[in-house]
C-alpha cells in the first residue's frame, strides 16, 4: 500500500477541535523560561489563564517569576488600553526584576494598542528592560507563538560578539516537547554534551539568564530540540551569526537507532567520537541487561499494529523506536504540527524503515479520532485526549506518553537516550498491566 499523506490546512476545515493553544500561550511559555523575569499579559483576564498554564509548563517558580495582567474590559476595547498598560508597567516598579515581557492578546491588537510605542515611551521611567511581543492568539498556534517569541528574544537580546567559543552549542526550543517532563530530555542533552567536552552557551529557553541569551552568538553550533517549531530561530542564527545547525536531518534520540545516530553525529562534529562510541556501547548494554533481568513484555508488542498521536517532536523518533526496537508496526501517525523540515525527516524515516502508515499532519482531535476508528490499532501512543476521546472504540492499549496527561509530573524523566528508553518501556508496561487489572471481584473474601 502506498503511503497516504494528508495535509489538512486550516482552511480545509471550518470547525476545528484543537490539540494546541494559541500564539499567546507559546510566547508566554518561551519568555517564562527567562530567569527572574516578569510577564505582563496585555489582555482581558481570561487570557491570563493561558499564561498561568505556560508558567506551569516551564516549571517557573512563584518565588522567582511574576505574572501580571492588565485585565482589559470593555472601556479599554472601546477607548484603547495604552493608558492602562502604561499604569500597570509603572506600578511594577516596586518589583526587583531584570526584564518585563509585555505580551499582547487578540483584543488590544485588534483595537490597535501600540505596545511597542508604549514601551519606548516609558522605558526611561523604569529600571528594568521592557520587551514588547505582539503575539495575539489569532497569529497562530502555540508553536507560531514560540517562533514569534524566539525571534523577539534573539533579535533584541543577542549581541554580536564577533568571536566563537570553541566546541560550543546553543539549545533551541527544548520546551516545545510533549514529553510532560521534557526537562529530563534537556538535562540528558546537557549531560551528553558535557561528557563530550561541549559547552552549552545558552538554552533558549529554560532557566535561562539574560546574560546567557546575550552570548548566543558565540556558539559554534545550534541544536534544535523540537520538530514542531524553532527552525526559523535556528535558520536566523545560521544567517546572522554563522551558527551551524547540528543533527538537523535525523530524529531526536529515542531508542537504539536514533540515539546511536544522534550521538555519533555529535561526536563527529565535536571531535568526541570516542565518547560517543562509549556512551552507545555502555548504554545499549545497560538497556539490554535491565530488560533481560527485570523482564520485557515482548508478548503484546511483537507485530502489534500501532498508532502515534502526538506532537512531531516525540512522534517522529517514536517511529523508529517502536518499529526497530519494540517490533511494533505503525499504521497511523497523527502529528499536531506540520513543519516542512519535520515532514522531510519523517518521510525519509518511513522510506528507510520500509513503513507505509497513514500520516496526518496538523491533525485536530476529530481527525485523529476518525483515523483511529478507521485503523483500529492495538496500541496508541498518545495522551489523555485519546484515552477519553476513543473510549467507545475499545482500543486495547492507550499509552499515555504525551501531554496532556496527569501522570509522571513530579520527577523529570527523559525519553531521550538509554535511560529514556527504559523510562518509555516502563510507562508502556505499566499501562499494559493496568489494562489487564481486574475491574471487579468474582467473590468476596471472608475476613
Amino acid at each position, binding site marked *: 500500500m502506498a503511503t497516504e499523506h494528508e495535509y489538512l490546512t*486550516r482552511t480545509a*476545515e*471550518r*470547525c*476545528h*477541535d*484543537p490539540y*494546541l*493553544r*494559541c*500564539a*499567546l*500561550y507559546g510566547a508566554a511559555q518561551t519568555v517564562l523560561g527567562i530567569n527572574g523575569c516578569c510577564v*505582563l499579559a496585555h489582555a*482581558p*483576564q*481570561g*487570557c*491570563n*489563564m*493561558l499564561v498561568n*498554564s505556560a508558567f506551569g509548563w516551564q516549571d517557573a517558580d*512563584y*518565588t522567582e517569576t*511574576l505574572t*501580571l*495582567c*492588565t*485585565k*482589559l*474590559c*470593555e472601556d*479599554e*476595547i472601546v477607548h484603547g488600553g495604552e493608558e*492602562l498598560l502604561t499604569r*500597570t508597567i509603572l*506600578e*511594577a516598579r516596586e*518589583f526587583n526584576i531584570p526584564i518585563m515581557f509585555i505580551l499582547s*492578546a*487578540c*483584543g488590544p491588537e*485588534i*483595537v490597535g494598542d501600540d505596545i511597542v510605542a508604549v514601551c519606548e515611551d516609558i522605558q526611561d521611567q523604569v529600571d528594568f528592560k521592557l520587551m514588547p511581543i505582539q503575539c*495575539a*492568539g*489569532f*497569529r*497562530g*498556534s*502555540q508553536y507560531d507563538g514560540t517562533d514569534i517569541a524566539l525571534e523577539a528574544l534573539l533579535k533584541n537580546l543577542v549581541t554580536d560578539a564577533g568571536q566563537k567559543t570553541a566546541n560550543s552549542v546553543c539549545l533551541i526550543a527544548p520546551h516545545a516537547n510533549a514529553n510532560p517532563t521534557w526537562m529530563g530530555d534537556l538535562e540528558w542533552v546537557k549531560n551528553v554534551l558535557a561528557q563530550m567536552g561541549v559547552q552549552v552557551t545558552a538554552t533558549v529557553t529554560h532557566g535561562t539568564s539574560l546574560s546567557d541569551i546575550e552570548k548566543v552568538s558565540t556558539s559554534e553550533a545550534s541544536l534544535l530540540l523540537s520538530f514542531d517549531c524553532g527552525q526559523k530561530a535556528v535558520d536566523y542564527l545560521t544567517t546572522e551569526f554563522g551558527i551551524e545547525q547540528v543533527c538537523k536531518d535525523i530524529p531526536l534520540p529515542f531508542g537504539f537507532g536514533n540515539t546511536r545516530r544522534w550521538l555519533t553525529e555529535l561526536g563527529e562534529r565535536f571531535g568526541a567520537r570516542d565518547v560517543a562510541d562509549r556512551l552507545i556501547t555502555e548504554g545499549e548494554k545497560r538497556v539490554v541487561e535491565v530488560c533481560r533481568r527485570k523482564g520485557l513484555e515482548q508478548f503484546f508488542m511483537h507485530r502489534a499494529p500501532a498508532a502515534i498521536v502526538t506532537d512531531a517532536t516525540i512522534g517522529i523518533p517514536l517511529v523508529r523506536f517502536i518499529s526497530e526496537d519494540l517490533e511494533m508496526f505503525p499504521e497511523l501517525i497523527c502529528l499536531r504540527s506540520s513543519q516542512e523540515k519535520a515532514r522531510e525527516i519523517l518521510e525519509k524515516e518511513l522510506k528507510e524503515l520500509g513503513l507505509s502508515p497513514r500520516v496526518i499532519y496538523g491533525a485536530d*482531535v*476529530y481527525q485523529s479520532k476518525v483515523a483511529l476508528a478507521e485503523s483500529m490499532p492495538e496500541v496508541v501512543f498518545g495522551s*489523555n*485526549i485519546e484515552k*477519553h476521546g476513543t*473510549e*467507545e472504540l475499545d482500543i486495547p492499549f492507550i499509552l499515555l506518553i504525551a501531554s*496532556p496527561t*496527569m501522570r509522571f509530573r513530579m520527577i523529570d524523566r527523559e525519553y531521550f537516550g538509554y535511560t529514556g528508553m527504559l523510562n518509555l518501556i516502563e510507562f508502556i508496561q505499566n499501562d499494559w498491566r493496568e489494562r489487564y487489572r481486574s475491574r471487579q471481584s468474582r467473590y468476596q473474601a471472608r475476613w
Partner: protein
Amino acid sequence: MDSDYIAFRGSLQQLLEKVESGEMVPKLQASHAPPCKFWTAFMVVNGIRHVAPVIHGPTGCTYGVANAYKLTSCEYRGVPLEPTTCTALDESNVVYGGEGKLVEAIKEVDDRYHPELIAVLSCCCSGIIGDDVETIARDAEKSVNAKVIAIRSEGFGGDFRSGFEDAFRAVMDLMEPPRQTREKTINILGARVGPTYTEWLEDLDEIKRLVSAIGVEINAVLCGGCTLDEIQRAREVKLNASWCYDWGQKLGDLMQERFGIPYSRTGQPYGLRATDEWVMGVAGPLGLEKSARELIRKETDQVRAELESLRRNLNGKTAIVEVAEFPGPIRALSLARMAEEFGARPVVINIHPYTIKERMPSIKFLLESGQNPEVVLTKGLFSLGTFRSSRRTELEIRQLVTNYDNAIFLGTPMRQPGIPQVNLTTRTGYPQYGFPGIRNIARLVESAVAHAARPRSKLFRQVLYGG
C-alpha cells in the same frame, strides 16, 4: 498595631458599602485575574450533555477551556469526552470577518458530531470585529438538525458573573412552553459538571437524596449534566431550588419573572438550621411539610452525637473563616452561619473587594437574610497579585488570630495560623451539605481540636511561602 496589617475591619454590610462607593480599590491593576466571561459561559454550556460548543475565535481560548473543564470532567466526574470546536480565527478572518466560516463550522459540527445542541460562543476577536453570532446561530439552525444557541461571551465584555448569567439566559430560550405541570417536581439550579474547586458532586448527591426522601422528583440539574430534553421541559416543574445559590440565583429569578415558576431562595445547606431551611424551602411550596418535618426529625436524631460535638467544639469560640480558592466566598459565608448556629462568633477574613463586586447579588441576598458577620481584610491579601502577598498574608493571619481568645480556623490548609484548624478539603469530608455533612464536619472539627498543636512542616511552609 492593627493599621500595620489590616486594610479593612467591619461588618460585611460596611465592606459592601465601601465597595459600592469605590473606596476599596487595590493599587495594583495587575492583581486578581479570575476567569473571564468566556470561561464561565463555557462552564455552563459544558454542563449540558451532547452539546457541541463552537467557539468563534482562535484555538487558545478553545483548548484552554477544553483542557481545564472537559478533560478534567472526564478524569474526575465520569463524563465522556465530547468535542470542543472552534473556527480557529486567523489574521485574515480578523481583517475580513469570520461570519462565513462560522456558518460553515456550524454545519460541519452538525454533520460530524450529531449533537443535540450547538452552542456558539463568541470571544474577544469575533466580538471586536463585530461578527453577529446571534443572527448566524438563528439562521444556521434552519439548516441543521441540532438546536443552536449563541452566547455573546467576549472576555472583555464582563466579569465571570456576566458569563454564566448570559449563558443561563441563552439556556432559558431553549425552555419550551409547558405541555403539563408536573406535580412535586423541581429543577435544581446553579450547577456545573465542569469541575471548579468549590464544587463537589457528593453535595449534589445529598441534595438529590433529601428531595427524593420527601417524595420530590428532579426534572433537571441546570446545568450539571442535564440533557436538552430536560432543559426543554424545565418549565413543567412546580418549583426551582438552588444548589449553589450564587450561580443559581439569576436563573431562578429570571425563570420566576419570565415563566412565573417560584424559586426557593435558600442558601447552601451547611449545618442543621440551613439544612432545615433548604428542605422546608422545597417542601413548603409543594405541600410536603409533613413528610419533610418527619424526615428532618428522623435524620436529626441520627446525628445527635455530631450536633453535640459541634456545639462542644465551637460554642464560645471565634470561628475564623478565610475566603480562599476553597471554600470560596459563598461557602465561607455559609460556614460562618453554621459556626454561629453552634455558638461560635464568626469572623470572615479576606473576602476581597473584587469578590464582593463580582458576587454582589448573592452578598446582598445573604445580608437581607440576616447574615452580616464581622469581616477582616488583611493588607497582603488586599494588595494581591504576587507570591509575596501570599507569604505576607500568612504572617498577617498569624498576627490577626492572636487578637481572639479561643479561636478556631475554618478554611484552606494553605494556611496554618497556629490555632485549631479545620481542613475542609479532605476527600472523606464530603458531602458537607445536609445531614451527612453535619457528620463529616463534626469529625473534621474534632480532628482539628485534637491536633491543634501539630506544627506546619518545613516542606509545606517553604513550598507555600518560600524561604
